[in-house]
C-alpha cells in the first residue's frame, strides 16, 4: 500500500503496533527545495512552536486532525450518515459543519468520501512502512544527489521514531536531512544529528521577545541548540521565513546573517542561508482545520525588498539564496 492508498482509510489502532510508530501527515515525492537534489519529504506531526504564519497548520498537533476541503465536496452527505458520533452535521444554511470535539477518529467518514473532501490528517506508520515509500525514488536520489528529508511539524517531537527512521535510512545508504525549528532538548538533537547528513533549520527572529510573541517561545534554546550543532561540525542550511511586518527589517536580517556567520566560526559547514519569502499557501488549511488564520491580509513581500535584504545578508554569509 503506498502513501496515496493510505489516504482512503484511517485506523487509530495502527498506533498500538510494536516498534517505533510515527504519526506522518504527508509523504511528498520530488521535493526539490529541501536539502539538495530530488528528495522525498516525510512530514511528521507535532510542533512546539505556534508561528502565526504557519504554512502547515495541520502539523501543529501531535494527534490526528480532521480536515475538510469544502470545494471538493460533491454533496453526497455519505460522511454524515457514516459518522457514529453525529459529529458531521448540516447547519441551517445547508453547509456541512464538523463538531470536532465529538470526533472519535474512527475514519468512517474518510472511507466514504470518494471525492476526497473529508480527510484525517496523520497516519500511524512503522519505520519500515515509511522507508518503503521513501525507497521508491532511490534512483532519483542517486542521479540527482538527493535523499530523504524528515520535516514537520517539528520532527524531533517524535524522537524515538525519528531516530529509528533516520538510522534505517542511513543503513540503507540514503542521504538524510531534517528540517527542524531546533526547539527541544539538546540530548534529542545530539542523537538525531548522529544519523543526519544535513540540518535545515530556521531562526524566525533574533530578538527573544519578538520571537516569543511571533511563535510562542523564546529563541534562547533554539540559538543554543544551533550553536551546539555548529560546534559538532554539523552541515547546515539556515533559513529565514521572511514575514512582512514581523521579521523583515534590515536590522533583523543583518543580525540573523551575523548569527549564521558565527555558526560557521563555531565549526558548522553552512551550505547556505536561504531567505524564504512569505506566501499565503497555508491559509486555506487553517480554515480546512476549522481554525482562524492569525495573519489575514498579509501579502507576500515585494521583490525589491527581498533582493535588498538578500544583499545585506551577503555581507555576512557567502551563499545566500532566495527561495531555497
Amino acid at each position: 500500500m503506498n502513501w496515496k492508498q493510505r489516504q482512503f482509510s484511517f485506523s487509530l489502532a495502527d498506533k498500538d503496533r510494536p516498534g517505533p510508530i510515527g504519526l506522518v501527515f504527508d509523504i511528498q515525492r520530488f521535493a526539490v527545495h529541501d536539502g539538495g537534489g530530488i528528495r522525498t519529504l516525510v512530514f511528521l506531526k507535532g510542533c512546539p512552536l505556534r508561528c502565526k504564519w504557519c504554512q502547515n497548520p495541520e502539523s501543529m498537533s501531535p494527534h490526528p486532525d480532521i480536515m475538510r476541503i469544502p470545494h471538493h465536496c460533491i454533496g453526497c452527505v455519505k460522511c454524515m450518515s457514516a459518522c457514529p458520533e453525529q459529529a458531521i452535521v448540516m447547519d441551517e444554511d445547508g453547509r456541512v459543519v464538523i463538531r470536532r470535539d465529538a470526533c472519535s477518529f474512527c475514519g468512517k467518514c474518510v472511507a466514504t468520501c470518494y471525492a476526497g473532501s473529508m480527510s484525517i490528517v496523520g497516519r500511524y506508520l512503522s519505520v519500515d512502512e515509511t522507508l518503503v515509500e521513501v525507497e521508491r525514488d532511490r534512483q532519483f536520489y542517486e542521479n540527482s544527489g538527493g535523499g530523504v528529508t524528515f520535516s514537520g511539524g517539528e520532527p524531533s517531537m517524535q524522537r524515538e521514531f525519528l531516530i529509528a527512521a533516520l538510522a534505517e535510512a542511513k543503513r540503507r545508504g540514503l542521504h538524510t536531512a531534517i528540517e527542524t525549528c531546533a526547539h527541544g532538548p539538546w540530548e534529542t538533537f545530539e542523537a538525531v544529528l548522529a544519523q543526519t547528513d544535513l540540518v535545515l533549520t530556521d531562526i524566525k527572529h533574533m530578538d527573544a521577545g519578538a520571537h516569543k510573541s511571533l511563535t510562542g517561545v523564546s529563541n534562547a534554546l533554539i540559538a543554543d541548540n544551533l550553536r551546539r550543532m555548529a560546534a559538532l561540525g554539523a552541515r547546515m542550511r539556515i533559513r529565514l521565513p521572511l514575514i512582512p511586518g514581523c521579521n523583515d527589517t534590515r536590522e533583523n536580517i543583518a543580525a540573523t546573517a551575523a548569527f549564521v556567520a558565527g555558526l560557521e566560526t563555531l565549526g558548522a559547514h553552512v551550505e547556505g542561508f536561504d531567505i524564504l519569502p512569505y506566501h499565503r499557501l497555508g491559509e486555506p488549511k487553517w480554515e480546512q482545520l476549522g481554525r482562524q488564520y492569525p495573519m489575514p491580509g498579509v501579502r507576500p513581500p515585494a521583490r525589491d525588498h527581498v533582493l535588498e535584504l538578500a544583499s545585506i545578508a551577503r555581507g555576512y554569509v557567502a551563499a545566500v539564496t532566495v527561495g531555497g
Partner: protein
Amino acid sequence: MNKHASLTAVPVLCGPTERVKRSLDRFMATTPAICHERAVLITEAYRQNEQQPSSIKRARALEAILAGVSIFIGDDEIIVGNQASKPRSAPIFPEFSCQWIEDELDRLEKRTADVFLISEETKAKLREAFGYWKGRTSNERAAALMPAEALEAHNDLVYTVGNYFYNGVGHISADYAKVLNSGLASVIAQAKAELAKLDYTDPAQLKKMHFLRSTIIANEAVIAYAARFADLAEKMAADCADALRKDELREIARICRKVPTRPAETLQEALQSFWFVHLAIQLESNGHSISPMRFDQYIDPFFQANKARLLPEKAQEMLDLLWIKFAELNKVRDEGSTMAFAGYPMFMNLIVGGQKRDGSDATNDLSFMCLQASANTGLYAPSLSIRIHEGTPDALYKEAAKLSRMGMGYPAYYNDRVIVPALLARGLSREDARDYGIIGCVEPQVGGKTEGWHDAAFFNMAKIIELALYDGVDQRTGKQIGPKSGSLETFTCYEDLLASYKAQTEHFVRLMAAADNAVDMTHAELCPLPFLSSLVADCIAEGRSLQEGGAHYNFTGPQGVGVANAGDSLSAVKYLVFDEKTLTMKELAEALRTDFKGREDLRMLLVNRAPKYGNDNDYADEIAREAALIYCNEVNRYTNPRGGKFQPGLYPASANVPLGSVVTATPDGRKAWSPLADGVSPISGCDTCGPTASVLSVAKLDHEIASNGTLLNQKFHPSAIEGDTGLENLKAVTETYFKNGGFHVQYNVISRETLEDAQRNPDQYKGLVVRVAGYSAFFTALDKTLQDDIIARTEQTF
C-alpha cells in the same frame, strides 16, 4: 569502442543578431495565406500528360511547378527558396483530396485556429482546378479500394487512417548527406547508369524504365529551380545600391549555380543545398513530417571546413535564418484537424547528439549550435530533439535542459538504450540502428533508407474498451460494429472482460491493417514521388519508387491512443468490482449508461479509489502494460504491400481529442465524449504522486515493442526546475526514466495559462504541486484567491 567523447568543448554560442531579430519580426507580422499557384500548375501538367504513366506524370508535374511558381529573395535572406508566393503561405495539393478545401474555402479566414487569408481570385482559380480532380484524387481511389467494413470502422473512429487517406505520406528523411557530398548531378548519373542496364523486353524492367526516367526529370527540375534563384539574385545584385547586400546577393547567385547540382564545400553552400532539397520535397507532396533528422552530423563537416574563416556569430546567424525558413513552410489542414493540430505544425524533426554508426559519441559543434538556434528563434520549427546515450556529454545535457526550461516543449529527449535495440529487433543493421533519427512526433528510423509510413493510423483504445463492455455495440450510434464478445451484464470475472477487450482489439486491428494497405496501394498506383524516391536507398538501384517498396526498409506504424484510459478502465473494474466488491457490475453499468448523471459519488469512487496508472502503483501499471501489449502484439502480425511489417507506436499527436469525442463514459471515471489521455502519459489529474512516480509508472510499459514510438509529456511548474539545481534535477528525471526503459520524454513548463486552466478544470490537475520549501499541498486544494496569487507569481522568480 569508447562511448565517451574524448573532448567536449562547448563552442562559442552566440545570441540572435540584429538581422535575425528583424527577420523574426517580419515572420511574426506575416499572416499565412493560401497560394493557388501549385494547384493550378499541377492541374495543367496533369491535363497535358494524361497518357503518361503515374511516375512520369508526377515528374512532369514537379517540373511544371518548380518552373512556374513565383520566387523571391527576401530582405536579409542568406539562404533562399520559397514554398509559395509569400512567406508562410501554403500551397494546395488537390491530387490527394480537395473536396474538403472546396467546402471550407470561405471558412479559412474565419476559423478560430490556424487562419489563412485567401483572395477571391485564389478561390476562383482553385475551384476551377478542383473541377479536374473530381473522381481522380488518391482519397477517392483509396476509399474505393478499402473493404466496406474497414471504411466504416474508420468513419466510426474506432481508428482513423485519415492522415494518408487525405494527404501525401511524408514522414521520411531523404539522404541529405548524399546531396551535400555528391550533388544531384551524381543522382542523375546513377539513374542513367541503371537505365543503361535495362532490358526493355522484360515487362518488369520496362516499368523500371518509367520510374528511372521520372527521377531524371525530377532532379533536373530541381537543378533548374536553383538556377532561377541564381538568375534572380544576379538581377537583384545589379539593382542593389547597398554594397554589402550586393556582395551577399552575388554570393547567393554563385551558390545557387553550384548547389544542389554539385557537392557543397562551405557552410552556406551546404545549408543552401540542404534547403533546396528540403523545399522540393515539400512541393512534390504535402505529406508532413519531412525530417532533417541528423542535421548536426551531416552539416558539421562543412562548418569545420569553414570554421577558421567564419565568425561564430555569422555561422550561428545562418543557422538561425534557416530556422526561420523552416517555420515559413506551411500546410493547410481541414478545420476539424486544426482543433487537434493548432499552430501550423509541420513536424520537421531535427535531432542532435547520440551515437555515430560506430557507437562513439556523435556530439559536435553543430549539436550545440542547433540548440542555440532554437533558443535564439523561439519558433515551433524545426522540432528539435536530442538523443541520449551513456556517453552524452554533461555540457550538451545542460544546454538541452536550459532550452527545456524556456517552455517551448523542446528539445524532446530520446533514449538510445531502448531505441537502438528496438530497431535491431525490426531488422535494421547495427550501424543503421545506431544512426537513427526521429520522424514526426517520436518515430525512429534510419534516414535516407526507410519508407516508414510512421503515421499510418490512430487506434482508439478507449473505443475498444467501450465495445468490449457493450458486446461490440457502438454506444454513440447504437450499431453493432464489433464482434459479440460479452457485456457488463455477462462478465463473471475479470478474465471475461479482458477476453472481450482482446477480441475487439483483434477484430479492429485486422480491419485497420486492411484500411492502411488499401491507402498504401493507392499511393503506389497514383502518387509515386520520383524526386523523393531518388534520394532514398535503394529506389534507384531497384528501379522502384518508394511507394512501390523501393526503400531499403519498409514499415507501417499505427498508434494506439488512450493507453491510460484502457488500462485504468480495466483496473477499475478488476479492483472495485471483482477484488474489493465495492461496486456491482449492475451499478457500474447503470452509471456508465447515464454518464454518471446523479452518480458523481460513484464517478469519484472510480477516479479516486481505483488504482491509477501514473502513480508507481504496480497494480495499475501492470494492467496498463498488458492493455498496451495486447494492441502491440496484434499490430505486429500484419504486412504491408511494400513488403514491410507493421510496427506499433503509442502516441496520439493530438488525436486524443477527436478520438475521445466518440467514446462514451468509461470505467476510469472519464465522462462521455471527453478527451483521452495523451500518449503514454497518465490521465491528466490522475498522477497525484508527482513526476518521479509518474515516470517510473510509464517506464513499466514495454517501450521496445512499440518501436514506432511512445510519447511522454511531463509538466513542471517553474518552481520545480529553477536554478542550476533545477537543470540537474531535470537531467536526473530524464536519466532515471531512460535507465528504466523509457523511450521519449519532453517537458512542458507550466505557464500562467495552464494554471488558469487548472482553476477552471481542477479534475485534470489534481496532481499539480507548486513546489515551495517545506510546504505540503496540492494546487487544487487552495482557494481561488490563493490560486490567483500563485498564478501571478508563476512567471516571476526571485
